[in-house]
């Protein structure tokens, strides 16, 4: 970065220095000024077609499109002059000319840039006396619905498919005011990353069928999160309504996922809402499991663990905090741990470096391995006869059932009580990732935070909390009240995490010691 040449300019009276070649639009962002725009997106090639970002640059005779005009030394840019405002107001009037103004039934309403900029700078009324143009909506296939009448032809979707997905299946068809976004008859929009066109669409033209008519977006609660559905660790926003996750959208992180999220990841959120959850601690009374207090369950578990080896079957979907706490339990009892990870076809996003739906469909494989858990398709192979088996929210496959009989005792810490583990001596209800705060380590070693998006059911607690209390019963000085405290303890104990705190992680994360330098996702 040392040899980057800086250019200093003034935007709305604020002086700002940016690397040469930066657009006025990006420089304005750096100066804290938002220049309205539609076709511009930092992840896509410049189109310069919407003409919304026109600003006044001193000494230039014409208004300049801020997205397509590079900064110049000593430039003085005015965003809100009468002339610039009039030009943008006119663009809005043109864009609204044939727009159906059907905001009350549009899913985009509330997060629509056409609404936002019209509210800020648009005309109060339209002057057209003529009927509006009408085109029927079209199912693009996959999860994408194209509501033609709302389209402003910014071509973000076309450019995404052309230049980022590298599969040009969308086009601009026809020309003039007859132009629409088109695709080829019979070719569905099923590219594994195609749903990003929905997020990229600045208006209500491209909608998710999954989210269709599900909620008004202002009713949603939002939490920054990490997609747990593969080891890439894409940054997301989890959105809930009435304590149900209803949508997962990408959150930009140039070190991980740029601006994108794959279809499989974003649509695989329903498990976070499953209703058959373990809600109360259970302890065994004869042949029955009965509801109990946390202390009863912890005591029962501690009693069985005393002097025994623990074999921990740990889900690779658990947080760093939980996996580390489980590894301490393994260490204390001289036991072992293992896990299985679900696999699927890898699906790279061609135009972004090192971004893919990864073959390993779990969030925290790297941390599980780092903390000594063995990755295996038959994870119970390492369990010795008589070990206390702790099932930490790990799925049980048909093949695992026979091995369960070899366990001296079974303790379940999980979101659900698996049918095959009904012989457990104690069951402790756990939160899923949407219900807790924590961190994951992605396949490149990036440690990233996620926040709680919804309330956990019943008495469930994060796994790290339950295990820390269990360790306390076993005589360790443990016991943390906040995820951040658990993480701080982890960082103090493990050299890979040395120096990290939730504050230093922020929302772009940090690499564990020894991880390779980050791959730039930006082209």
């Amino acid at each position, binding site marked *: 970065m040392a040899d980057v040449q800086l250019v200093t300019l003034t935007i709305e009276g604020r002086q700002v220095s940016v690397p040469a070649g930066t657009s006025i639009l990006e420089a304005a962002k750096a100066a804290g000024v938002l220049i309205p725009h539609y076709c511009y997106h930092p992840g896509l090639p*410049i*189109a*310069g*077609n*919407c*003409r*919304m970002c*026109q600003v006044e640059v001193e000494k230039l005779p*014409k*208004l300049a*499109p801020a997205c*397509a005009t590079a900064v110049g030394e000593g430039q003085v840019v005015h965003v809100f002059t009468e002339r610039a405002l*009039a*030009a943008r107001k*006119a*663009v809005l009037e*043109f*864009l609204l*000319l*044939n727009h159906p103004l059907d905001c009350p039934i549009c899913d985009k309403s509330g997060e629509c840039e056409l609404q936002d900029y019209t509210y800020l700078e648009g005309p109060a009324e339209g*002057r*057209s*006396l*003529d009927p509006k143009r009408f085109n029927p909506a079209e199912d693009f296939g996959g999860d994408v619905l194209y509501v033609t009448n709302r389209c*402003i*032809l910014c071509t973000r979707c076309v450019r995404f498919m052309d230049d980022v997905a590298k599969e040009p299946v969308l086009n*601009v068809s*026809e*020309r*003039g*005011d*007859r*132009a629409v976004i088109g695709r080829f008859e019979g070719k569905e929009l099923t590219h594994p990353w195609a749903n990003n066109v929905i997020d990229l669409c600045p208006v209500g033209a491209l909608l998710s069928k999954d989210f269709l008519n599900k909620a008004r977006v202002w009713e949603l609660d939002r939490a920054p999160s990490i997609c747990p559905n593969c080891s890439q660790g894409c940054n997301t926003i989890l959105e809930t309504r009435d304590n149900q996750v209803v949508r997962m959208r990408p959150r930009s992180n140039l070190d991980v996922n740029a601006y994108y999220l794959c279809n499989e990841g974003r649509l695989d959120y329903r498990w976070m809402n499953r209703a058959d959850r373990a809600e109360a601690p259970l302890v065994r009374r004869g042949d029955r499991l009965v509801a109990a207090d946390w202390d009863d369950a912890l005591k029962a578990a501690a009693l069985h663990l005393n002097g025994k080896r623990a074999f921990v079957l740990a889900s690779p979907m658990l947080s760093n905090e939980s996996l580390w706490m489980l590894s301490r339990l393994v260490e204390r009892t001289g036991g072992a741990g293992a896990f299985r990870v679900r696999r699927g076809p890898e699906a790279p996003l061609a135009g972004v470096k090192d971004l893919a739906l990864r073959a390993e469909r779990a969030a925290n494989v790297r941390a599980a391995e780092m903390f000594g858990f063995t990755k295996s398709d038959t994870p119970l192979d390492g369990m010795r006869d008589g070990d206390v088996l702790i099932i930490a929210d790990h799925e049980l496959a048909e093949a695992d059932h026979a091995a369960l009989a070899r366990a001296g005792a079974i303790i379940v810490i999980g979101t659900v009580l698996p049918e095959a583990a009904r012989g457990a001596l104690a069951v402790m209800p756990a939160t899923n990732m949407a219900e807790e705060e924590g961190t994951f380590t992605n396949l490149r070693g990036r440690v990233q935070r996620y926040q709680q998006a919804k309330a956990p059911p019943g008495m469930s607690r994060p796994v790290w909390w339950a295990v820390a209390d269990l360790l306390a019963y076993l005589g360790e000085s443990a016991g943390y009240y906040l995820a951040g405290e658990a993480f701080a303890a982890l960082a103090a104990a493990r050299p890979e995490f040395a120096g990290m705190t939730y504050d230093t992680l922020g929302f772009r994360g940090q690499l564990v010691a020894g991880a390779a330098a980050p791959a730039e996702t930006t082209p």
Partner: protein
Amino acid sequence: MGYPHASHAKETPVLSRYFGDPGAKTLDGWRQRGGYRALEKALGMPLADIVNEVKESGLRGRGGAGFPTGVKWSFMKPGDGKPHYLCVNADESEPGTFKDREIMRWTPHALIEGAAIGAYAIGAETAYIYIRGEFTEPLRVMTAAVKEAYDAGIIGKNAMGTGKRIDVHVHKGAGAYICGEETALMNSLEGRRGNPRIKPPFPAVAGLFGQPTTINNVETLAAVPHILVNGAAWYKGMSRSSPKSTGTKLFSVCGNVARPGNYEVEMGFPFKEFLFDLCGGPPPGRRFKAIIPGGSSVPIQTLEEAEATPMDYEGFVANGTMLGSGGVICFDDSQCMVKHIARLARFYAHESCAQCTQCREGTAWTTRILERIERGLGTTQDLDTLLELSDQMTGKTICVLSDSCATPIVSGIQKFRAEFEAHIKGKRCPMGATAAA
């Protein structure tokens, strides 16, 4: 000569000298008429000397923008290790303009020779002649002439035996006015939609296939051999008014006029004399009402304005319009200006590439308003709306198609406001050109 009419004595036929002469179409015929001497001379000249000669001549782009040709060529840097390209803009589509068509129909080798010199001068080994798809006859003639030139070794890998490579290819357009815009033409040639590109980068830096490219109009290139043979001073001498406008210019004349056709005159020729003497004035019994002198994209002139104009770049600007492509459209007093302006707006709405918001929506919207006025359903506010929309369609888009749509609207309302108001007040077209709704 004023094909299809005999040449008028006041014309200066340089480019049009062999219009209507079938003998000029063939290679042998062209050679007999002095053809390819300029190319032979050029291939023996240092590149910079060719560029300087053209610069010195004062030749300016005949496609509409009037940019000095030699200066444009000097932006290219031969020997920079990159492939260079010359594009020949034969997408002549500006309403009122049909001069390049005649050059290609009658003197195809004049264009090949000019293109070969141009390509050589800018360090390009390949020239593409992009001809609009509707020009079936020029396409046939040019294709045959290019084959002749290849067969005779005039062009190809050893042009005229000099060891220098100059390929010339004819490329057929497919129906899109906007491809006459230089960056749209390049996109079209690359096999894309004919969308104009944002500038910068300019074609001389990154043009066709991302390489340094120069694009010249047919008439411009056809003039180059004459300049090389006769010298810059000779060319510069053909200038009757402004010294910044030199040489001869082909004007296409159409609409309500006694003798439509192409006329070649020296720059600065008096427009009044041109209209009434060369072109024979309006049809019998009629009066000229309006003249669009440079293709449909330039401001409309009243007859009084036209009569005061010397026909060169500066003269037209001084009289409120532009030389443009030299397509002179005449409307006589039987014509409804509202109807014609609406029809021109419809042309631009049809041809808008759909990229820029103001153009895509504005060309269609202004068309609807104008057609509504013509049908007698206009309101008094419509004229203000049209002027405001036109203002927002001007100078704000990637290319000037949007501006071109606004131009006849603004100048039409300025100069023929009474006609618009008569439509609105009378609730019908007073000329009866269109039935009232």
